[in-house]
C-alpha cells in the first residue's frame, strides 16, 4: 500500500471505486463542510475537496478536507498549480499528510480569469504561479513519498504517504495527443486518474481503447468522470462551452422533453429535469463502468451533493465496500 487510504484499498480490491465531490464554501464557517460531508458519507469511497475551483476563493482544500475527515468522510485533497510555487506546495503536502490526509489530486487549475465562468468577480488580476505543472507536481509527490526527497533534493525525515491522483480530459483537443497526455501523468507517478465528465460514451470508449493498447489502464486506476446533469440548459452549456465535453443530442433532447412535460410550472420543470438527470447519470455510470479498463467512477454533483445517495443506490453501487486496513 502506498498510502493505505480507503480509496486505494477499494481500488486495489478490484471493485469499482466511487468518488464524489465536495466544494468548500466561500466562508469561514466549518458547518457547511460538515453538512456536506454527512450527506456524502457512506455513499462514496472518498470525496474530492476542490481547491478554489473556477478560480474563486473558497475555504482551502486542506482545511476543508480535514473537517470532512473528522466527520468520517475520506477526503481527496486537490492541489492546483495555479496558486503556489513548489515550496508552498511541498510544505502544504507535508502539513496535509501530518493532519491525516491520504489522497491528493494534482491539477493545473482553472485560470484566474475564469472567475466561475464570469458569474463571480473572482480575481482576474491575480498573478498566477505555475511554477510547476500537473505532471511535475505528480512527480514531486511521488518523489517525496517514495524517495523521501524534496524536489530540490533535500531529505524528508518522514515522507508524506499520499495516494496520488491526476485529472485527465480524454476528449479535448488535440484528441490524438490525449493518450500521450495520460501516459505522461502515469509516467510521472499518478496512482489514479479522474477524468473530465463523460457524456459521449462512444468517444470515451474509443480513447480507452488506445489507453488499453498502451497498457495504461493497468498502471493506473482510471475513474470515469460523471457530471450529474441538472437541467437541459446545463447540458447545453457543457456541450458548447466546457472544454473536452461534448453531449450527445439525444441526452439534451431527453432533458428538454422532461422540461416541456412540466409546461409552465417552473418548480415541476426543475423536479422533472432533476429526475431525468439522475436517470441519465445512472445510465452513464453503467456505461462507463462497462468500459474495459475503467476502475471506478468520479461522480460530480456540483452544488447538489444530496443527489449522490440516490444515484449511488440506483446504480447498484451501494453499500460501499468496507475493506479493512492491512
Amino acid at each position, binding site marked *: 500500500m502506498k498510502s493505505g487510504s480507503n480509496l486505494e484499498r477499494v481500488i486495489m480490491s478490484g471493485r469499482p471505486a466511487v468518488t464524489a465531490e465536495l466544494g468548500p464554501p466561500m466562508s469561514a464557517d466549518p458547518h457547511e463542510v460538515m453538512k456536506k460531508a454527512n450527506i456524502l458519507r457512506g455513499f462514496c469511497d472518498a470525496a474530492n475537496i476542490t481547491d478554489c475551483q473556477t478560480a474563486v476563493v473558497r475555504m482551502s482544500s486542506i482545511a476543508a478536507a480535514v473537517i470532512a475527515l473528522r466527520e468520517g468522510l475520506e477526503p481527496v485533497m486537490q492541489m492546483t*498549480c*495555479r496558486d503556489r510555487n*513548489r515550496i508552498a506546495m511541498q510544505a502544504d503536502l507535508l502539513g496535509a499528510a501530518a493532519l491525516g490526509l491520504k489522497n491528493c489530486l494534482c491539477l*493545473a*487549475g*482553472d*485560470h484566474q*480569469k*475564469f472567475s466561475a465562468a464570469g458569474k463571480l468577480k473572482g480575481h482576474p488580476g491575480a498573478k*498566477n504561479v*505555475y*511554477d*510547476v*505543472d*500537473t*505532471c*511535475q507536481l505528480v*512527480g*514531486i509527490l511521488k518523489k517525496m513519498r517514495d524517495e523521501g526527497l524534496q*524536489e530540490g533534493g533535500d531529505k524528508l525525515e518522514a515522507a508524506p504517504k499520499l495516494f496520488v491522483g491526476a*485529472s*485527465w*480530459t480524454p476528449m*479535448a*483537443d*488535440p484528441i490524438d*495527443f490525449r493518450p*500521450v*497526455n495520460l*501516459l*505522461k501523468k502515469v*509516467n*510521472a507517478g499518478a496512482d489514479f486518474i479522474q477524468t*473530465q465528465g463523460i457524456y459521449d460514451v462512444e468517444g470515451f470508449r474509443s480513447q480507452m481503447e488506445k489507453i488499453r493498447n498502451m497498457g495504461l489502464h493497468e498502471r493506473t486506476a482510471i475513474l470515469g468522470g460523471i457530471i450529474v446533469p441538472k437541467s437541459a440548459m446545463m447540458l447545453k452549456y457543457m456541450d458548447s*462551452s*466546457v*472544454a*473536452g465535453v461534448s453531449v450527445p443530442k439525444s441526452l439534451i433532447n431527453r432533458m428538454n422533453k422532461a422540461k416541456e412535460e412540466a409546461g409552465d410550472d417552473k418548480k415541476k420543470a426543475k423536479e422533472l429535469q432533476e429526475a431525468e438527470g439522475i436517470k441519465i447519470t445512472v445510465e452513464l455510470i453503467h456505461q462507463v463502468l462497462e468500459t474495459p479498463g475503467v476502475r471506478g467512477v468520479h461522480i460530480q454533483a456540483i452544488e447538489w451533493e444530496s443527489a449522490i445517495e440516490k444515484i449511488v443506490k440506483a446504480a447498484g453501487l451501494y453499500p460501499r465496500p468496507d475493506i479493512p486496513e492491512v
Partner: protein
Amino acid sequence: MIIGSQKPIEEIWDMVKDFKKVLVFGCNTCVAVCHAGGEKEAETIASLIRMRAAQEGKAMEVNHMGVMRHCEPEYFDPVLDEVRKYDLVLSTACGVGVNFLSERIGNVPVYPGINTSFYGAVEAPGRFVELCAGCGNCILHLTGGICPVARCSKTLMNGPCGGTNKGKCEVSQEIDCAWYLIVERMKKLGTLDRLSEVLPARNWSTSRDGGPRRVSLEHIREYEEREEKKVEQAGGKKQ
C-alpha cells in the same frame, strides 16, 4: 523586438501636470516600429499634453525630440545637455530606456510615457504578438518552436491542460492554445514522440529572479575595462 503601448492621456497628464518644461523624448527603435514611442508618437503626446495644459489654463512648455535608442548612451549623449534643460523628461522608450536614461541624466526626473508590453513580432501591420518571455533558458527545440512559457496561459511545460477547447485556450476564444499548436506542429515535424517525456520542473532562476539579469562577455569586457582604467588614470571621466 520590444513592443510598447500607449498610456491614456489622463495618466500621462497626472504625471506631468506639475512641471513647467516637459520634453517628450522618443525612441526610434523597437517602440517606434510598434507605433508607440517613436519620434512621431512623441510629437503626438507632446501635442496632447499642450492641449491638456491649455484646457487647464496651465503655462507649460512641451517639446519633443527623438533619438535612435535610449538603451545605449552613445545615442543620447549628444543631446543630453539639451535634454537636461527640462524639468521633466517623459520618455516614450520602453522601460529599459526609461531606467537607463534616468540613471544617466542627473537631476531631471524621467517618467514613462508608454507601457512596455512584451517581446513580440509584427504579425501584421498594426498587430503585434508576444512570442518570447525572455526566461533565459530556451527550450523551443523541445516544443516545436512554440514557446509554452510565453504563449501558454499557465506556462505549462507538460501541456495541454484540460482547458483546450477547439484549439483555443480556456482563458479566451481569442487565444490560441499554445500546447495545441505545439502538438500540431510537432506532428507535422514528425517529432511528436518527444512530447511523451515529462519535462522536469524548470529552473526558473534564469528568468526574472534575484535582481537584474546581466550578460557579460568576458572577451569584450576584459579589453574594455583595461581601456576604461586607462582613461580614468589619465584623469578622464567615465560616463
